[in-house]
């Protein structure tokens, strides 16, 4: 589905990013968030929420619709099913476009955008898509890009309506995994790697409990997040340890909860950013991993090498090092792989095998090690964009109750998994 990866910074040895500090994020908008779309309220459909997020982002930047000349989005909304065969609605909700994704053409039409010269609807998921957006602005494909990422959850138990899971046959590459119960997505292989991690370093599943609790705590300080809106209470360690088992030892609280929502961001040139409403948050680099392991299951060693390489690419392109990163928001859905990012980037000096000890220390936003100040996706629902929006808010100084007390000049954020991800380095200063 993703047509072209030539724009990616996915190799070591590419040097300082050529647009370092010349691209900035100047707007952010987050829509309402529900567990599922009710199939009735069009404002809360994928298209409706996307419009809401986009308009909020444009307003946040202090721009007008006519300022937008680039539209970038992804089809990877994780709906896991189509709206069909259920009947479509009156236009503009008369196709999947608007219901299970919202393309650049759909938004251009619905918002009446007149000056768009660059449209991209087949960007990858949000991690690499943010890099694509920064690169597009840096390369001059557009000056001011509206970038949005809907996450879609329709009626029914999540994933159980995915045709692949109902199929009696296993075609193509799935023939080597599905017959043994392997499910697509980040759960299985990352749980395998987590088990290898526990075996190698003598750790166990309960070492993730403090991470889970702190993420929920941070998430409850995020007013638009799923738990603030719909289940506003803190979990206890006992809740976590007694959580419903999905794939033993993985429990429900290790999983970020699928939600129905959309986030949008505005990228523009550093020059254009200078006189806009918000303090610009500059992009110093973006980097991607898109490898895979040698055999059926990628291994701990392969994931560790993947993240170590990602870190080298990030340092090389941004000119920063591990000790320069103030805010760190790596993906946490599932909780089982977050330690690879923490250890691979060596944030706050955490080395291989030390993450669970770090989690057990003080990681509150008020404290000295405000890891995942966003609350992540465990704390706010699986929107993924929170990793980026919190990074931006922390650098702007507008994170409210989540605002860290340590220095917040730089931020590193990204998703999804160690072997397949896109990360971005943000800074308050262009150099």
């Amino acid at each position, binding site marked *: 589905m993703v047509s072209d990866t030539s724009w990616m910074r996915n190799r070591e040895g590419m040097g300082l990013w050529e647009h370092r500090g010349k691209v900035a994020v100047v707007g952010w908008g987050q829509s309402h968030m529900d567990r599922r779309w009710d199939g009735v309220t069009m404002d809360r459909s994928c298209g409706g929420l996307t419009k809401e997020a986009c308009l909020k982002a444009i307003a946040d930047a202090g721009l007008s619709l006519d300022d937008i000349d680039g539209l970038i989005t992804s089809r990877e909304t994780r709906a896991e099913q189509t709206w069909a065969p259920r009947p479509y609605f009156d236009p503009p909700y008369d196709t999947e476009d608007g219901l299970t994704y919202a393309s650049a053409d759909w938004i251009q039409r619905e918002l009446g955008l007149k000056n768009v010269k660059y449209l991209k609807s087949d960007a990858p998921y949000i991690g690499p898509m943010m890099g694509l957006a920064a690169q597009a602005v840096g390369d001059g494909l557009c000056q001011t890009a509206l970038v949005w990422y809907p996450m879609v959850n329709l009626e029914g138990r999540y994933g159980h309506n995915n045709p692949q899971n109902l199929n009696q046959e296993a075609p193509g590459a799935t023939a080597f995994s599905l017959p043994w119960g392997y499910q697509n997505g980040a759960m299985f292989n990352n749980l*395998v790697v987590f088990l*290898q991690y526990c075996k190698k370093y003598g750790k166990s599943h309960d070492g993730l409990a403090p991470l889970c609790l702190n993420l929920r705590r941070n998430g409850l300080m995020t007013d638009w997040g799923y738990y603030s809106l719909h289940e506003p209470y803190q979990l206890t360690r006992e809740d976590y340890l007694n959580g419903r088992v999905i794939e033993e030892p993985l429990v429900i609280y290790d999983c970020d909860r699928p939600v129905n929502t959309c986030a949008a961001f505005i990228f523009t040139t550093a020059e254009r950013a200078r006189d806009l409403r918000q303090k610009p948050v500059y992009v110093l680099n973006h980097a991607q991993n898109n490898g895979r392991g040698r055999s059926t299951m990628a291994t701990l060693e392969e994931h560790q090498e993947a993240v170590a390489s990602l870190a080298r690419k990030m340092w090389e392109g941004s000119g920063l090092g591990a000790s320069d990163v103030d805010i760190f928001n790596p993906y946490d859905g599932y909780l089982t792989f977050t330690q690879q990012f923490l250890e691979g980037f060596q944030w706050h000096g955490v080395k291989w095998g030390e993450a669970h000890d770090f989690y057990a220390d003080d990681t509150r936003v008020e404290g000295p090690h405000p890891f995942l100040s966003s609350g992540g996706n465990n704390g706010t629902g699986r929107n993924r964009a929170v990793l980026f929006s919190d990074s931006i808010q922390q650098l702007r100084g507008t994170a409210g109750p989540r605002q860290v007390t340590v220095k917040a000049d730089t931020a590193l954020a990204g998703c999804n998994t160690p072997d397949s991800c896109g990360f971005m380095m943000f800074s308050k200063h262009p150099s």
Partner: protein
Amino acid sequence: MSTIPGLERPAPVPNELTKPFWDACNERRLVLQNCTACARLHYPPAPRCSQCGSPDNFEWKEVEGKGHIDVFMVIRDSRIRGFRSAQPINFAVITLDEDPGINFLSNLPGTPPGEVPMGAPVELIFEETSTGQLVHEWQVVS
């Protein structure tokens, strides 16, 4: 059918790349691609060698069906229909003794869910799927 009660494995559908592999399974043989230039095994089947990048030096090599259990989990809430009727069910990663960089999935027929001896040796067996296609499986050496 599987020897695991309730299990209905989705049946592999061979394609051009994988047909020799699945045909060999039906003869109860496990064959892997071997790049003769690199002496490197590949599994699952790949269009070209992951080391030298060439598709030209592949041969199908039969391997001895001996391995070890690396790690395991227990599937308790699968999204896959044929597994929902069999859960809880083991899900283990098996490394091949001839080349531990090659790994396989296994539900460990004969081993009760959760009672998996970590690190134990396993041997190759085959199980039937709904189309009659055999798939490779592993059981703990008694």
